């Protein structure tokens, strides 16, 4: 069964409303549901403001959801508080994007990496903790001689290895990785992606991998959820979604990727894809309403969608496994007029 199950998460942020201004509600996460099995990678892909990082932070309980449930290893995480929550945190750990900001500059590596052990393995003495840290650093490709050094002495890639070691030291079941390679150069990115892959099979880890990078997602993920304006608009096996996108947004996003070879410059041609026209995100993708929530309904992508029809304004966005694409009944799309399964 699935290790992590998330059902109907909702989160709304409010802003403004002081000094007589009208209060604005931003629906950052809307009815988001997904599950992650042991040893599996689910990627959440989306652009800025899509709600992917908010979702990750809610799963980690760094933010409280307005409603919904999070079940980890059969236990409802939302109800847990205080010591009980701390105990459960051992099972899920987070790796952050910025390896420069996520390590305390005044702590030695051994203390940073070993910090989680003080809570989750309190019976270890200092020497045993050191030993455990050395072991995990080695698994992350770092020599144990670095333990008494400070973060500033390391490059971005090395710091990200240290950040991964810090998450792994308490032997979690699930890693939530928020843009873990976005700040890295491509050659370093490759090293870190390989490391993550190796660690995953060694420890049978589940990854919730948050990224804006479609190529990285394709490489690392088993399944992918595409987020737009707080909704998951499409979800399925990564090969299937990339080869046969059903949601117009997914399709537009995939088409917007730069080419890999100059000979493919499609936008040299006049037919500069109508789908591209439709993806002008100069309209902020987050849906903002005033206090009256009535305009909350309808497909949030309809303003930018080439396929949009009048009925899209009344559509209750919901992932639907209708007409599964060939041989894959996990492919779901939230669209009234999904693209034909054979397209592309």
């Amino acid at each position, binding site marked *: 069964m699935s290790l992590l199950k998330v059902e109907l998460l909702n989160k709304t942020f409010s802003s403004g409303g002081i000094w007589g201004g009208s209060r604005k509600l931003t629906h950052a996460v809307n009815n988001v549901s997904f599950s992650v099995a042991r040893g599996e990678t689910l990627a959440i892909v989306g652009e800025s403001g899509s709600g992917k990082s908010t979702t990750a932070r809610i799963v980690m309980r760094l933010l409280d959801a307005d409603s919904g449930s999070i079940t980890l290893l059969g236990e409802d995480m939302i109800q847990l508080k205080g010591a009980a929550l701390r105990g459960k945190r051992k099972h899920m750990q987070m790796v952050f994007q910025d390896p420069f900001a996520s390590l305390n500059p005044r702590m030695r590596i051994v203390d940073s990496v070993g910090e989680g052990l003080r809570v989750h393995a309190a019976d270890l003495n200092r020497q045993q903790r050191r030993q455990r840290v050395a072991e995990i650093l080695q698994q992350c490709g770092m020599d144990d001689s670095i333990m008494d050094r400070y973060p500033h002495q390391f490059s971005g890639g090395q710091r990200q290895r240290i950040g991964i070691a810090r998450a792994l030291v308490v032997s979690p079941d699930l890693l939530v990785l928020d843009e873990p390679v976005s700040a890295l150069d491509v*050659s370093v990115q490759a090293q870190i992606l*390989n490391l993550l892959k190796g660690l995953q099979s060694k420890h049978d880890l589940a990854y919730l991998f948050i990224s*804006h990078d479609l190529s990285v997602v394709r490489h690392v993920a088993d399944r992918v959820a595409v987020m737009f304006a707080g909704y998951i608009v499409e979800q399925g096996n990564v090969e299937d979604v990339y080869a046969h996108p059903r949601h117009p947004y997914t399709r537009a996003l995939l088409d*917007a990727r*730069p080419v890999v070879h100059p000979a493919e410059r499609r936008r040299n041609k006049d037919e500069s894809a109508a789908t591209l026209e439709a*993806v002008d*995100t100069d309209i902020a993708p987050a849906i903002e309403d005033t206090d009256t929530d009535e305009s909350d309904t309808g497909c949030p992508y309809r303003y930018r969608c080439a396929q949009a029809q009048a009925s899209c304004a009344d559509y209750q966005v919901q992932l639907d496994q209708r007409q599964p694409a060939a041989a894959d009944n996990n492919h779901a799309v939230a669209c009234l007029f999904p693209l034909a399964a054979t397209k592309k």
Partner: protein
Amino acid sequence: MLKIEHLSLAIATSDGAKAAVSDVSLTLEPGHVLGLVGESGCGKTLTAQSILRLGEHQGIVRSGGRVVLDEQDIFDMDEKALRKVRGGRVAMIFQEPMTALNPVFSIGAQLIEVIRLHLNMTRKQAEMRAAALLADVGLQDGERLLKQFPDGLSGGMRQRVLIAMAMAAEPDYIVADEPTTALDVSVQARIIDLLRKLQRERQLGMLLVTHDFGLIAELADEVAVMYAGQIVERGSVYDVFQKPAHPYTRALMNCRPEMAKKGEPLPAISGQVPAPGDWPDGCRFAARCPLADSDCTQSVAEDAWQADVHMARCVHVDLAAGEAGG
């Protein structure tokens, strides 16, 4: 033509000057896009900024070579002449659309300032030109936009405003440093389209500085690859993509996830880029190169490179084969 000739740059640090760029030569021609690609710390941004002498207040000093515009060395110009070149003949587009605009001035004020600095216009004329420029970069309702402040604009819109600013004085050359890196993928695609359109219509000579081979594949005519302060390969974009001749270029292209087979490890480059000042004699990539042997302690001079020919700084490369493949 705008020429960088044998340019070397050094960074002043508390332990003396450290070499950051060595012996780089590049030529920008009107109507052409030259891509300068490399990883962080390779010296690509310093090279680009040196065209307008932008690094000087950060302690970047020229240790050799020159940057020549209309037969005049930019490093010999006085402040007044330099101001005319900056934004006038050569404009710059930076990576960070969020920080490159001043938050306390309206879009109009900032755009009009640039226009009036370079063109002899009245306020009224400048205002009209500003609105027209915004239309050129795909921003509708320019009159209203001119009154807005940067915080009301999305990243994509800000980048368009900055591109409009760069175009304000009709420059001949554009230096674009990671112009799409901070943007979402769909906005990126639109900015790429805009840059291509403006570059073609105005026959701009563009230096496109990026870490992203995708952007190079979309826009560049020619490409130069930098590693540890040197250009290690140069050629037409087709030749370099078809048959990368330097082992570093090849490795860098192959470790992109879009090139990899699903389920197989990415062919990562082992080791790390040597820091400025720690460059070895001979080939600077040798320590990380699968082809390296004792011959690699000799350095390959760029002087022998011919213009318009696909060349690589590697003793083990058979350039003839590289070209046949291209």
